[in-house]
């Protein structure tokens, strides 16, 4: 390479592997050596080294500043004003933005027509074409291409169209104002070969270091393995015992009891519960349901009270006072629900769903102690 760094494309085999596996210290050392060489190449043309520590003071220059940034110093900036150059190179990107040139098209009478190269290629005596012409405003901007280098924009005459073309090995690739000699087929083939060799070496190193991924991937592999084992043990191909173990729905307490034996309330138990419900309703309200011209309605029917073994059928929240005519509404709805089951037991969720739906239908007709009631029949204007 012109700056003394290693051309990676020319490396192969073990040399490429060693380059790929460089340590951060090696990379830093190479970078500093390259910077020092560029410094010597530049100042070597002007005599003794004015600042031997210069290269060490700008370790991050080639990262933070556009390599073409300092190219135009050879023009307006005086070659002898090196301190100014150094200060400018230390300028941060934000400060550089203050030097952002006016990007509007300017009538250009003379274009140097050259692509700005790396600093080592252009640092030196001023270019003859730029002599006597201010160059400071060219900071960060490529030199203008010749007026005849490409078509102009129809919308903005004079502006170079940003397009790339390659017409042959002996011609140039142009992108706006930038252009470069097009590579030959041999150069392209060599480039592809180098890229393939690089990719192959990187892949081999990845394979060699793949063992390092084991600790990171082990938890995921263990989890997937357990899941697969569980799927095998409880899936369709598993024995019946395994499927039963995984049937968590059937393991609910209320369903376990329902499947073991349908222990519905007997008629005697329901009659006793209804007598107790009337007594509890009267005690809670200070007046009996019959005195309120109402009946005690079990919001959760006694028919399926055994499916909720932990719920007291006569809990006050389950005892509603309804007039006889209004009691027909839940009776019809629950009868329809029971018919829809076609003989099977409902689940708790189905019961709750039906209860909530029917409760909404019945709620407007609840009779409460202390509220006035009408003696008129409900069908003739009286409330239910």
């Amino acid at each position: 390479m012109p700056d003394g760094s290693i051309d990676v494309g020319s490396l192969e085999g073990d040399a490429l592997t060693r380059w790929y596996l460089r340590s951060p210290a090696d990379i830093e050392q190479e970078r500093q050596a390259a910077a020092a060489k560029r410094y010597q190449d530049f100042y070597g043309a002007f005599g003794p080294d004015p600042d031997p520590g210069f290269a060490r003071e700008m370790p991050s220059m080639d990262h933070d500043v556009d390599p073409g940034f300092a190219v135009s110093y050879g023009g307006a900036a005086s070659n002898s004003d090196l301190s100014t150059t150094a200060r400018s190179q230390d300028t941060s990107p934000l400060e550089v933005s203050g030097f952002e040139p006016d990007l509007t098209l300017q009538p250009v009478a003379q274009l140097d027509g050259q692509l700005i190269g790396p600093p080592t290629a252009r640092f030196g005596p001023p270019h003859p074409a730029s002599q006597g012409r201010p160059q400071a405003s060219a900071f960060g901007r490529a030199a203008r291409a010749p007026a005849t280098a490409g078509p102009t924009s129809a919308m903005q005459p004079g502006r170079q169209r940003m397009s790339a073309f390659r017409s042959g090995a002996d011609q140039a690739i142009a992108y706006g104002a930038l252009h470069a000699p097009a590579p030959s087929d041999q150069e392209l083939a060599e480039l592809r070969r180098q890229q393939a060799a690089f990719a192959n070496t990187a892949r081999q190193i990845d394979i060699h270091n793949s063992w390092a991924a084991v600790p990171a991937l082990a938890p995921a592999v263990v989890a997937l393995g357990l899941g697969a084992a569980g799927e095998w043990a409880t899936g369709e191909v598993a024995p019946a015992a395994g499927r039963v173990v995984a049937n968590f729905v059937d393991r609910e307490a209320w369903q376990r009891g329902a499947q073991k034996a349908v222990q519905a309330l007997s008629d005697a138990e329901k009659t006793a519960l209804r007598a107790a419900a009337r007594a509890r309703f009267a005690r809670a309200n200070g007046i009996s349901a019959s005195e309120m011209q109402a009946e005690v309605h079990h919001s959760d029917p006694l028919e399926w009270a055994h499916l909720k073994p932990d719920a007291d059928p006569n809990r006050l929240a389950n005892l509603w006072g309804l007039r006889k005519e209004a009691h027909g509404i839940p009776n019809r709805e629950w009868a329809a629900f029971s018919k829809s089951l076609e003989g099977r037991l409902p689940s708790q969720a189905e019961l709750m769903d039906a209860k909530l739906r029917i409760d909404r239908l019945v709620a407007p007709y609840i009779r409460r102690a202390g509220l006035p009631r009408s003696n008129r029949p409900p069908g003739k204007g009286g409330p239910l």
Partner: protein
Amino acid sequence: MRVPVSEATKQLEARGLLKRERHDHSERIIEHVGHLLGRELPPDLVSFYRERIARLGEFYSQTPEWNDRVGWRSPDSLVTQLLHADAVPIFDDGCGNLYGLDLTSGADAPAVYFFDHERSYEKPEWAAGSSLGAFLLLLADSDRSYAEHWPPRWELTIDPDIEKCPRAPAIWNAG
């Protein structure tokens, strides 16, 4: 052992458990119910309506209400609600269930059965009395039996024939 309705009502009235209607519309009710049922009423049912029973303890009778100005205040379904099961409601239990007098036997003393509203009054669930008079005595003591934890089958001391009802068993033999 048949207990006449009139005898039962006397006992219950003496105990202060019976409340009668103020106005006597019994003949009008008998005619109305006979018309709705489309058949001749059993003698016990006729006696029951003539006793003008409004309430027995906490239980209200299922008797059509007549008003001289507006006519029948109660819907016809009060009488015909159990017709699909060949029965006529005579009392409710305060929770929507009905006690119905059997209309199928054709005997002089039909039995009384319990019909569950959660089963849409589909069929007689259990026998509530071998006759209407016996049923009135049993119903009057039913709440007290629960409150005082009477022994099982205490009904047999009042109605020994309750297990002989043709359409449904006694409550202790029911499901």
